[in-house]
């Protein structure tokens, strides 16, 4: 058997080498399909990885409350994709945040009420800036570094902390925004602090702090801002009380939101799946699109093998006449399909990661490599080879040797 495999491997390799261009193009077809899957998997993995690391770096004492409804149905995903705020369905309120802050074992807690509003400074106006209502405890919960100035405080209600990118757009300065004023909903605000540029703008709060304006949520509500609370971040007193605190919060919210229990309380690794279902469904859809190109690649393999079988009808006849069984011929072509698709898979693996690294140069993503992805790639390539190689190989094996010998090109 080993000899048989080796012989047919050599035969198939020979035939592929003879038609280099054709084989390369076929491999490329498979390669592009595999590459797009690799790219998606590696970027998704990198996002998850980034948040997991972040949660870990901040200590494992975080508890997060999020609305859960958007994970329920595809409709809400469509809502999320088509509207500016994907947390439309949130029914968490500032009262909830306040109540949770009052629980024992809570060291600090901060709501994240994100919205879009018009900001106007002396000479510039930004009509759709990201404004986040939160509390002064946010920088204890989430490790925010200040470039200069101070964070929000009890003393000044209309204080604001600005991210670097937004500061540049609004005030035209990347480091001297402290002390400047701007107008939000007809109220004057004063910038008291600037945030250090974030290394990884993707985080468990699902907020890009670099291009956001942080203001006090209570004050925002007072002046008529109707931002919804999309998340409540809680820092527990210590890791030992995480489970009981989470249960306590769940009980409290359950009692509060009878009939509309649209929330989830997460801690530990569970936090690292941002926006839960939405993320999974979007990446799932991308994967489906990528596998379409993989199927197209597979059809390419089938096509090229059918051509090869037709071209080599006479050769098949000769081989059968000198003693090849149908199984031998089947193996020969199956090996050809397998080599093509495996080579394509490897090419795709390299292409996919090359592209992922390229993306990582321009974005904060770091390509994520693990054995799971390698195994997925290899097994898809093998599956494609077997599935799309079977028909041409069977066709070749079934050829009648007498008719094949009579065949002239």
């Amino acid at each position: 058997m080993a000899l048989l495999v080796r012989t047919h491997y050599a035969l198939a390799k020979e035939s592929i080498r003879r038609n280099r261009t054709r084989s390369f193009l076929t491999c490329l077809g498979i390669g592009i399909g595999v590459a797009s899957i690799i790219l998606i998997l590696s970027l998704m993995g990198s996002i998850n990885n980034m948040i997991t690391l972040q949660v870990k770096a901040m200590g494992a004492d975080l508890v997060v409350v999020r609305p859960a409804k958007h994970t329920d149905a595809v409709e809400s995903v469509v809502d999320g994709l088509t509207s500016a705020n994907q947390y439309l369905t949130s029914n968490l309120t500032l009262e909830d945040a306040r109540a949770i802050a009052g629980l024992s074992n809570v060291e600090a807690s901060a709501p994240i009420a994100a919205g879009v509003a018009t900001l106007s400074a002396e000479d510039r106006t930004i009509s759709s800036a990201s404004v986040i209502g939160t509390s002064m405890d946010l920088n204890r919960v989430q490790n925010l570094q200040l470039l200069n100035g101070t964070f929000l405080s009890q003393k000044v209600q209309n204080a604001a902390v600005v991210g670097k990118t937004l500061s540049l757009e609004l005030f035209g300065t990347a480091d001297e925004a402290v002390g400047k004023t701007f107008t939000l909903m007809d109220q004057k605000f004063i910038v008291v602090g600037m945030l250090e540029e974030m290394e990884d703008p993707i985080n468990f709060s699902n907020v890009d702090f670099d291009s956001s304006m942080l203001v006090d949520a209570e004050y925002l509500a007072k002046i008529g801002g109707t931002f919804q609370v999309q998340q409540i971040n809680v820092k527990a007193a210590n890791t030992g009380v995480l489970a009981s605190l989470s249960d306590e919060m769940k009980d409290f919210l359950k009692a509060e939101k009878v009939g509309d229990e649209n929330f989830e309380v997460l801690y530990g690794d569970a936090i690292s799946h941002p926006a839960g279902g939405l993320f999974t469904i979007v990446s799932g859809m991308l994967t489906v699109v990528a596998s379409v190109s993989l199927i197209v690649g597979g059809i390419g393999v089938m096509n090229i093998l059918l051509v090869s079988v037709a071209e080599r009808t006479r050769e098949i006849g000769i081989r059968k006449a000198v003693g090849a069984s149908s199984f031998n011929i089947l193996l020969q072509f199956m090996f050809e399909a397998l080599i093509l698709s495996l080579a394509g898979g490897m090419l795709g693996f390299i292409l996919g990661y090359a592209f992922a690294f390229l993306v990582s140069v321009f974005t904060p993503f770091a390509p994520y490599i693990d054995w799971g992805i390698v195994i997925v790639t290899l097994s898809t390539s093998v599956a494609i080879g077997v599935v799309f190689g079977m028909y041409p190989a069977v066709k070749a094996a079934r050829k009648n040797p007498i008719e094949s010998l009579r065949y002239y090109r």
Partner: protein
Amino acid sequence: MSPADVIIDLKGVSKRYGVGDAESYALRDFDLTVKRGEFIMIMGPSGCGKTTLLNILGLLDKPSEGEYILNGQSIERASERKKARLRAKKIGVIFQDFNLIPHLSVLDNVTLPMVYAGYTKTHRELMADKVLDRFRLQEREYYMPYQLSGGQQQRVAIARSLVVDPEIILADEPTGNLDSRSSHVVMEELKEIHSEGNTIIMVTHNPALTSYATRVIHMLDGQIDTDIKTVDDDDLPQPVEIHFRKRKILKEVKAALSGKKSEDLDEEEQITEEEER
């Protein structure tokens, strides 16, 4: 003549094409007994069933009716796989248009049957070497078929048919595409092979070649018209026992592979080993 010397026995073989009104017979109730060492020439007009007969003998085609006994075994119930093995090991075929694989070198073409008979690469090349040497083609080993003349190509094809040391050689007009000089060379080769005890069944249109044969069969409409033996059965070349020769070649190959010491090995065991593989 003992029954063991009968290598091929066709009993009432018919080959039918088409159904109903379109029915026609390429072979009709055909009986043929071939003894080891015969050199049979089959002649006859086009469409008399010569090629069909050769295809059936070569296990490429199945008779519609009748029985085919090869080496004392009926092949009626043999599996496709078993037939392929018989083709690879027991039967050598030579065609009118050579049928070499154009993109394989002479050496690869010659080793082709051995690939399917299950020999290792070193083994294959050593044995092919010997055969090519015999046909004075050794210096052409790495030529491609299109670089050879017709006569040389046919000699490569003959080398290919002989490389696994088959018991029967089937030739379908081997000189049909050759000029008279090349024809002569090829026929001399076949004659030599025959004199070593091989059984050759050859189809031809050229009456001048019948002088090489020990038996000439004229066919007409799928049946034997005349059947003339020019050599007495007892005078057929028999001296070389096939298994003996095979053993000898194997022994030499093994010796070449291991350097020496092949005499120490049990020859009988080598054969069975090879056969099982």
